[in-house]
């Protein structure tokens, strides 16, 4: 590929675009090390708000709750979403396919308030105790369709004859799926899981409808704190979340590089 010379305009617009996206985050990170009690006044470098966070039992509990909900709902959504995608991409034109696909993708465009409210009504009607499980179920409902979209597009791009070749070589349809299709759509499934995980982690609306007293998620907790005035502690928490997400992305890309490298080297018999 030839090197593209950047014009002044290109550089300026790139800088502006990146600043627009990342400057607020950079400011947030810097201010998380602010020694002052006031968010907007710089009081010198300090890590006191990190210490404050690690001593804030309620905030820690909320973070732990969010993490567990994200883990459980992302995993459930990945399993269900992948199965739905397989049904849509490989099931042929079964009866009610259009209806199924429409219903599957409805949460994508449904206002979260409606999803949250209707789930709340359901849980109340079922007399279910609201807490970890109800939030997890609600988040699974929300994120499943995102997983299905990601996996279905990968399945659609995948050559059907690969599965047929596997069957031709002695695999049952299920076996062919596991031996050939699954490894090839694994990156999409992983991406779907990560998407679901982050969606669940930062959801405020649905979680606030479906959670119960004593089981607030991190976004709910932060939001209620912020209503009483922003403490620099919030900045510290957000910085930690950004760090965690960055780490997750780095690990994921390293893992995918590693698995490619492994396949490249001589596969032992």
């Amino acid at each position: 590929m030839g090197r593209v010379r950047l014009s002044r305009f290109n550089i300026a617009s790139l800088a502006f675009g990146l600043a627009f996206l990342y400057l607020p985050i950079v400011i947030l990170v810097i201010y998380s090390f602010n020694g002052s009690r006031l968010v907007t006044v710089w009081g010198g470098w300090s890590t006191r708000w990190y210490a404050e966070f690690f001593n804030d039992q309620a905030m820690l509990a909320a973070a732990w709750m969010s993490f567990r909900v994200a883990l459980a709902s992302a995993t459930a959504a990945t399993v269900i979403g992948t199965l739905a995608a397989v049904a849509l991409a490989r099931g042929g034109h079964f009866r009610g396919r259009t209806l199924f696909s429409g219903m599957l993708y409805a949460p994508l465009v449904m206002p979260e308030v409606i999803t949250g409210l209707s789930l709340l009504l359901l849980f109340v009607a079922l007399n279910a105790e609201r807490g970890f499980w109800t939030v997890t179920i609600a988040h699974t409902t929300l994120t499943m369709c995102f997983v299905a979209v990601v996996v279905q597009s990968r399945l659609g791009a995948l050559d059907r004859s690969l599965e047929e070749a596997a069957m031709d070589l002695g695999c049952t349809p299920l076996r062919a799926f596991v031996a050939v299709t699954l490894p090839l759509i694994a990156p999409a499934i992983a991406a779907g899981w990560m998407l679901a995980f982050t969606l669940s982690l930062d959801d405020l609306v649905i979680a606030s409808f479906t959670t119960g007293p004593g089981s607030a998620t991190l976004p709910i907790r932060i939001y209620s704190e912020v209503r009483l005035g922003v403490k620099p502690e919030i900045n510290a928490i957000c910085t930690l979340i950004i760090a965690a997400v960055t780490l997750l992305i780095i690990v994921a890309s390293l893992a995918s590089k590693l698995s490619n490298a492994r396949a490249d080297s001589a596969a032992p018999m």
Partner: protein
Amino acid sequence: MTDHHATTDAALAASQAPLLRIEAVEKKFGGFKAVDGLSLDIKAGEFFALLGPSGCGKTTLLRMLAGFETPDRGRILLDGEDVASVLPHRRPVNMMFQNYALFPHLTVKANIAFGLKRAGLKRAEVKARIAEMLALVRLEGLAHRRPDQLSGGQQQRVALARALALRPKLLLLDEPLAALDKKLRESTQRELIELQRRLGTTFVIVTHDQDEAMTVADRIGVMSAGRLEQVAAPRQLYEAPASRWVAEFVGDVNILDGTVAEQDPHRLTVTTQDAATLSVAPPRQKVDINSAVSVAIRPEKIRLSRRGPVADAAAGLNRRDGVVSDLSYLGGLTSYTVKLDAGATLRATLANVARVEVDDFSRGQHVVAWFSPDDCVVLPR
């Protein structure tokens, strides 16, 4: 009769029975009949080609042989056993896919081993079979490459090795050479023939390329609209097409429509609309006087000259006067379009046998086109 005789008779019957028998197979997609009551026998060890334009049902037929489609009607007998509804993984049949369908996440070696492992072969056997297959397709050095690190020709060989690794009774090839360039395709065709002779495996190839079908196959089945138009050896297909459709599909042909005027044991006289009266060899099946027929004549069987053949040699030949209206020089051949004075347009190809042609023709030149009655094929219209 003694037991001994009974067994030899059974063995004889088995050797004569076709490996594959397709009986009145029909397959519909919605209202469209992809395969329409087709019957065909293929002998063990044969190299058979299914030739036809796209959409003629040849790929559907192949997919039914592999088990990816189930016939709506009819039977598919493999070694006397009906396999029409047997799933692909239970058939002693393997397929080489048009786009090769190599598993991109596996190495060449693992691709070839895929079926062997499923079949439950021991490690040592798998290893030996892989080595054998790699040697067979001459890819010994590339066992650890992945498909995306191979050229198109190499991928094609891996696909072939993978399909042959299980030693199928029947190998199906779906347009196996369509993705290769011309030169590579021709050399690969020769390799396929050699491989098939060496292994003795029955090959069924699907192709829309008549040169390919004629090069590789012992017999060709020409398909059109879900039916077999003709099943014959390449030469017979070209020189004795069963229908006008086959004559036009396989190779170039001049078709002259007319009616039968006279008939004797050796010659048939056909009055054509725009090429006057032709003397042609009578077809094998009887035709009635006054019946409408088409006369097919291949371009290379028409000779052109400035003055026409000498009287003795011309006895019994068809000769027509005309004007060269177009010509294209193709290297080995020159193709001429001749507008006959009687109205018809004939295409004639002449081999360029010498570097400097003494007897070539230019546009607008008056020529005599002549051809033997034995080179004319009479087809029902």
